[in-house]
């Protein structure tokens, strides 16, 4: 039977050797707070009742941000 995606183990294979220049970009953990929010996600426990769309609107208001969306589930 098909393996669930979370049970597939992959190994990392090298093709070339090259270092990355610390001048550009940064590791996800070291983003500025602003960029952390901009490129961030929340694993939110949506209460039953309100739609995902409504909850996104609340999150935008709570966090005072202009852009947010939801993913993963459209309906049950």
């Amino acid at each position, binding site marked *: 039977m098909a393996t669930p995606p979370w049970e597939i183990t992959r190994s990392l294979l090298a*093709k070339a050797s090259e270092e990355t220049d610390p001048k550009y970009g940064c590791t*996800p953990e070291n983003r500025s707070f602003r960029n952390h929010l901009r490129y961030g996600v929340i694993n939110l426990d949506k209460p039953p009742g309100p739609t995902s769309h409504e909850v996104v609107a609340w999150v935008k208001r709570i966090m005072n941000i202009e852009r947010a969306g939801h993913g993963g589930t459209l309906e049950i």
Partner: protein
Amino acid sequence: MASEEAIRRIFKEFVGPIYQKPPVRSSVKREVRIRTIYSLEVLEISQNHVLFHTSCQGGTYIRKICYDIGEVLGCGAHMRELRRTRTGPFVEDRSLTTLQTLSDACSKWLKEGNEEEVRHIVRPMEDCLKFIPKIYLRDSAVDAICHGASLAVPGVVSLESDIKANDEVALFTQKGEVVALAKAAMATDDILNFDHGIAAKSERVLMSPGTYPRMWQTRKTENDKG
């Protein structure tokens, strides 16, 4: 009413690939498609209520599974309640946040200037991609991808095993930042062995252009010459 023995027997039949037609109220085209049920386990039966746990492929309608099991049983069935305990890499663990917790953390941030809790609740978008196979890029390939280019084989520094052509992949920098989502044009072994060709086609760019230096040349037209 169906017997407990019949319920348990029919549940076993729904494990593996199943045909499913999305319900009337659905957000996808209503045509029969195949979805894989990895597990379907009865936890409790009480009168005409059945509590079960399932692990299934994305895009499976649980409401429809309940209905279809009822059809096979002959007595009919409907979904009463659903709790999603996992979606991709997101599970019910300490990262799962209630609106109340988020709201409290945001008060500390917006009213007291304390960003710590919000920073912890918000996770890097890379966390979404835990189970998507990854290809790591040279710095010099990153900005071209940010401008929508396809990934050519020489831009690859390393990659994960078991990628097949047409698989959904994620293009990462060597610092672990996601650059774009892409569709693999070659399998892992071909990307390793070839020295030219398109390895993956970008589908969704996530990094802002200009984050890495532009190392690519635009092709000169006749007018640019001289």
